[in-house]
């Protein structure tokens, strides 16, 4: 049945109706509006007809000066600057949910963000230091609707599963065997590649390498959202998911191309939940296939080698390009056309005790085409351990340590070595290496609603370039939920 639904979703174009990271669950004892209403007998939090939540997060990062053999060589312009820099994001989000009919739910999530990235978000390929940063963000706050979608649940039997009231989740009880259809505007990460241990990045790891696979170029606009649909089949401990989402009109830009029959990003995920030594865990296998208007690195190189006038600095103003000034480099602007990108990945999570868990992600993408929506990596691996503070009498505190590494393909490296740029990296030259980050943090909870976080990151080979770095970044975060 899941395959039938998946097939139907594959074939049918979805209607063009339109932090990329989903929020984590609220603790029952959290101080928030819905719990407050419930305590005054004004709301049924177990069987909700509506709910409303909110969050505000301020993140400030300081990057220390680092050594670099060169920066923005020959007019390429995607280097992380070696000077000291400060970056910040402020986000404010409201989460509204309403039950429309039996099994039918609607969600609307307006959001405001203000930000300043390090080096205008240039120079880090798979381990951007703050997951909240958006490609079009500015210091002038932007108000937008991040999510606006419908979800329909069809119960098919099995045992009851309690869904707690949370942002983008009405409190209800569903069957362990069910089909869930979602359509509208949301982020692919609301449905796919969830990880209970890594959880909500607004309370966990700050580096984007731990939010999802660095090399998964899932379709999204420049903020991380897109329109499309997904079908999920839950069958006790198993889950099968399929989704089709719309890519951006041009790589890494805000407008999306809603023509889902022509350009699209398909994702297929199989999940199995298990209990190992009395503790829960999960295994997820993810495959994706994108058919989007992008440039192939090999095509760009061949075009430049055949005609040197077709270089990065000569991109016509009428053609989408990144604005590189390097006359000796190839550029993707000359060769964009519908291309296919594929990748496969694994996502593991396992609790060792009730309060300590570990996760592991790894993905291999073909690496033949440019980044269209997420970041520049072609392969990735990440591993992390998180611990809640119950053992030291602070149950709402969270501490974590993790390591993430990402790589690029040999043809991607050749393109960058010739001075080419993509959406995020391109120093003008390259000595290829894995971009690797370690991220260590502690989140201190106040009043069950506010988290103060101190975070340290050490990044080797920024931009996949062994001639630059390493980079040290310290970050402070204030996060509140209500």
């Amino acid at each position, binding site marked *: 049945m899941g395959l039938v639904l998946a097939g139907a979703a594959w074939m049918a174009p979805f209607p063009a109706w*339109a932090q990329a990271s989903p929020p984590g669950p609220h603790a029952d004892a959290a101080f928030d509006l819905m719990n407050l*209403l419930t305590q*005054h*007998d*004004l*709301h049924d939090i177990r069987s909700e*007809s*509506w709910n*409303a939540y909110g969050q505000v997060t301020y993140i400030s990062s300081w990057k220390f000066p680092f050594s670099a053999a060169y920066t923005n060589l020959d007019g390429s312009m995607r280097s992380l600057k070696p000077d000291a820099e400060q970056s910040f994001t402020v986000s404010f989000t*409201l989460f*509204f949910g*309403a*039950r*429309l009919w039996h099994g039918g739910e*609607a969600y*609307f999530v*307006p959001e405001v963000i203000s930000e300043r990235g390090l080096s205008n978000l240039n120079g880090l390929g798979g381990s951007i230091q703050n997951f909240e940063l958006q*490609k*079009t963000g*500015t210091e*002038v*706050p*932007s*108000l*937008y*609707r*991040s999510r*606006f979608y419908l979800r329909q649940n069809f119960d098919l039997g099995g045992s009851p599963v309690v869904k707690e009231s949370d942002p983008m989740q009405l409190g209800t009880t569903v069957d362990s065997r069910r089909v869930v259809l979602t359509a509208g*505007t949301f982020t692919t990460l609301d449905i796919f590649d969830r990880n209970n241990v890594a959880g909500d990045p607004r309370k966990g790891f700050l580096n984007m390498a731990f939010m999802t696979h660095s090399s998964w170029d899932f379709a999204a*606009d*420049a*903020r991380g*959202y897109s329109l499309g649909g997904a079908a999920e089949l839950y069958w006790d401990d198993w889950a099968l998911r399929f989704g089709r989402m719309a890519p951006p*009109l*041009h790589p890494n*830009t*805000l*407008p*999306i191309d809603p023509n889902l029959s022509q350009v699209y990003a398909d994702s297929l995920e199989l999940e199995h939940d298990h209990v190992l030594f009395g503790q829960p865990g999960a295994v997820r296998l993810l495959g994706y296939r994108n058919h989007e208007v992008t440039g192939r690195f090999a095509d760009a190189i061949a075009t430049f080698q055949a005609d040197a006038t077709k270089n990065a600095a000569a991109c016509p103003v009428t053609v*989408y*390009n*990144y*604005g590189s000034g390097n006359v000796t480099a190839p550029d993707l602007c000359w060769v964009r056309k519908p291309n296919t990108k594929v990748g496969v990945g694994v996502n593991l999570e396992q609790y060792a005790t009730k309060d300590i868990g570990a996760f592991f992600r790894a993905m291999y993408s073909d690496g033949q085409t440019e980044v269209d929506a997420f970041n520049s990596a072609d392969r990735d691996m990440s591993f992390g351990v998180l611990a809640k503070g119950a053992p030291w009498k602070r149950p709402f505190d969270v501490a974590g340590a993790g390591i993430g590494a990402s790589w690029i393909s040999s043809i991607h490296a050749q393109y960058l070595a010739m001075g080419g740029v993509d959406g995020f990296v391109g120093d003008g030259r390259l000595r290829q290496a894995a971009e690797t980050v370690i991220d260590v943090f502690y989140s201190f909870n106040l009043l069950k609603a506010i988290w103060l976080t101190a975070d340290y990151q050490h990044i080797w080979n920024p931009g996949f370039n062994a001639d630059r770095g390493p980079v040290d970044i310290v970050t402070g975060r204030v996060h509140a939920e209500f």
Partner: protein
Amino acid sequence: MRSSRVRTRLTVALAALAAAAVVTWPPRACAQQTAQGFALDRLYRSGPGAGWFVMDTLDMHGGLGGVMGLTAGYAHDPLRIRTTDGSQQLAVVSDEAMADVGFAATYDRYRLYLGFEMPLDVSGQGGAIGNYRFTAPNSGQPFTPSGVNPSTAPDTIADARLGLDARILGGPRSPFRLGASAQLYVTSPNETRAEYETDGTVRAMGRLLFAGNVGMFGYAGHVGVHVRPLDDAPTPGSPQGSELLFGVAAGPRLPLGKEGAMALVVGPELFGETAFRSFFGSATGVEGLLSGRVEGTADDGAQLRVKLGIGAGLDARFGVPEWRAIVGIELFDRGGRKALIRP
């Protein structure tokens, strides 16, 4: 001799001064000026759960209730600029489609709500009329080498609206009810006036509301002030500052279904606004809307309200379309089953 020299020097100095004045004096306003955009839509929607599209039934009651509503509308030719003799005209905004998502909490006689206006499509034609050049909306480039033009963002929220309505006199079904309403429009900082979706400033409204039910007949109306800091006078077809708001609506309420579980309300809404600086002059708009709605009548549990309105502008001022269609769907719970907690 000496006086002649002095006169000569004085003449030279005056001539130099005159020449300098000619060179440095700014040219007269014969060059074309570029008109800027503004929040064009003048159908100022009532709060979610208010019943009518513009007026308010003022029937809030019971314990804590809630409303979630989606309104979508299309307006044709809401901004058509004409020369005074009518020889030239330009549909600067010929098509405007907007959606509004709103959420309200009701308690006793109060309604607190939050709404988000989202442009779906705003398009038109640029050109010159007289000394003014008008730029069509959606004419921004979708991308630049350094990023995208935020004004072409598909996920835009134009203005956010925070409102509070209260019934001051009368019960929820009294023949005469009097209420007050305050709304604050906060503009999205990333929105630009060029898209005709926002004024780029904070706006506010204060309204005196009245409504009532006599038998199966219901009526509602308002008079108020729209505090609008934007004053682009004398640019043709542009806001001229704060406005007086007025409007009435009336229609029968017909029971539907078993024991009147649903009700149909049909009737006209007539509403308008006029700028104080040209009272009932060039910045006055009046619009009529024939609206109908079907709504659940139960006091407890989730109820549905579906609304449809079709209307036309009664004059040709800015924001008043040639014709308009608007639909709304609301899910609401009047909160009647819940205990009313009084301090």
